């Protein structure tokens, strides 16, 4: 039961796993990811016939189904001859990396491959590593290139960087903290640095950085998910932030979906606009509010940013 090695060979153009959220509610995240990558001269190659990764839900019903779902996507990446898979959703990073850990064990690998092949998928040998798009941008572009790409610095904005749970956790699956060049699992800072490179003021020691958003139970446990959404906003308010930056569609959607309840239970004064970090980066790289799709977000960062002089 030793953990699988978390990173393998590096591809010039890794495979990109969109996942359901980026193709659905999180469209603004996908579009602005692409804008940011373009401006930084980075490319990813989309896994075309991907399937849902199963998030954290499927594993509670069946281990094998919860491994086969992500493994099929990793197998597709391997058949594109890629060794690296980049995903933008924390939940996807978690379940893809969890599948890698599981198929590291031979008996499991044999069983999963029998399932995959029965379903018409190529087999998977465990040789594709998984990375969050935040880490990909940070490692590949570096802060220098980000600074050089800025056209409209985010000067005057104070941002609370919200990472959530599964970007780093657990390191046994993600390899974050145990692989050279990855973020710090307890005190991540890649997002802080990227936003700072874009000219924003970033809240130091934002205490809600890695707390849970409750998104897994967004529908099934309202008390908890509303409270977590509220405390992410409340900590941002206490730290003097104007807005919250997210790196995960689950976090983004969970906070935004609960805004009415948060207002009613905790008061309007804690509410802040919430935006994907790539929306903010794209804005800094010269996109308009519309191009960065900031009007897609229910918390309407576009209105707030317009009042601050962005167009």
């Amino acid at each position, binding site marked *: *039961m030793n953990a699988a090695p978390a990173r393998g060979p590096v591809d010039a153009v890794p495979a990109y796993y969109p996942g*359901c*959220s980026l*193709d*659905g*509610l999180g*469209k*603004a995240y996908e579009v602005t990811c692409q804008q940011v990558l373009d401006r930084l001269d980075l490319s990813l190659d989309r896994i*075309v*016939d*991907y*399937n*849902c990764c*199963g*998030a*954290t*839900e*499927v*594993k*509670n*019903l*069946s*281990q*094998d*189904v919860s491994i*086969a*779902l992500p493994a*099929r996507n990793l197998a597709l990446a391997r058949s594109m001859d890629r060794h690296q898979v980049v995903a933008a959703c924390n939940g996807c990073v*978690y379940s893809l990396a969890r599948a890698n850990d*599981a198929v590291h064990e031979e008996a*499991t690998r044999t069983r999963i491959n029998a*399932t995959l092949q029965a*379903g*018409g*998928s190529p087999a998977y040998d465990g040789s594709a590593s998984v990375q969050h798009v935040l880490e990909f941008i940070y490692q590949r572009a570096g802060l220098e290139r980000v600074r050089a790409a800025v056209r409209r610095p985010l000067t005057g904005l104070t941002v609370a960087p919200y990472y959530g*749970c*599964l970007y*780093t*956790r*657990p*390191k*046994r699956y993600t390899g974050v903290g145990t692989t050279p060049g990855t973020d710090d*699992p307890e005190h991540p800072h890649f997002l802080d640095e990227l936003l700072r490179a874009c000219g924003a003021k970033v809240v130091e020691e934002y205490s809600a950085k*890695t*707390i*849970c958003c*409750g998104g*897994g*139970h967004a*529908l*099934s*446990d309202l008390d*908890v*998910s509303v*409270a*977590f959404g509220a*405390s992410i906003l409340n900590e941002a308010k206490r730290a003097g932030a104007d807005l919250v930056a997210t790196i995960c569609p689950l976090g983004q959607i969970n906070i935004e979906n609960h805004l009415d309840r948060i207002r009613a239970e905790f008061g309007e004064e804690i509410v802040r606009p919430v935006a994907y970090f790539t929306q903010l980066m794209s804005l800094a790289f010269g996109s308009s509010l519309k191009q960065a799709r900031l*009007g*897609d977000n*229910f918390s309407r960062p576009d209105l707030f940013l317009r009042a601050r002089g962005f167009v």
Partner: protein
Amino acid sequence: MPIVEKSLVSVDRVEHLEVEGIDVSGDWNTFLRSRVVTDLDVKIADWVKGQPQGETISRCWQCGTCTAGCCLHTDYGLEEFNPRYFIYLAQIGYEEELRRYASTIWRCVSCNKCVERCPKGVKVEEVIHTIGTYLELSGGAAESPADRFDRAYTENLLGRGILDEAALFRTYERLEGRRTPARELLRLGLTLLKSGRLHTGPFAHRTRGWNRMRKVLEAKLTEDRARRRASVPAPPVPSGRKP
């Protein structure tokens, strides 16, 4: 933590604690002589350990690190949500006490802080869910909202290979007997439609060539469910016996 309130210290408890004739007080200079407890009921621990998600349960040495940082216990403040204790109760087979938490244990939000921090490599989050599954399958515990959601989610995504978010929302609301007012739904639907994000029903995304995989995975799901149900030990006979 030092005990600041002296009145909390009871001499009887600290200095004269004896179990089965063995001094377990931990008083200065005493070593705890090991004793063998043979009447623990290990059927729960064995069952949990037999599930791939629960196999790390036996590594736990009860340090409490998981509970100390648990999002539900510490951040949300749900004191009775105590992963260390759930594992302990499963290990010693104190089923009646464990059952008292059947309506709490499902609330784990899968934040994985516990897994990240456990010094023994216990996959705490998965172990906790497996204990929850035990409580449900072995009779007694009703299906929890989280279990209903997991089921709705899985069935939804297996249908087309890609989740239909709007359909999942509708299915789950029906399962819970909840109804979001039509006006609110319409407002949400319009916002999503305008920004090109409403892919539901006939417009839902699908994975090309998924049908074959769907059949295999649905069969696997049914098989796993049946296997878990069949392997679960018989429901407990209430006895009042403490381990």
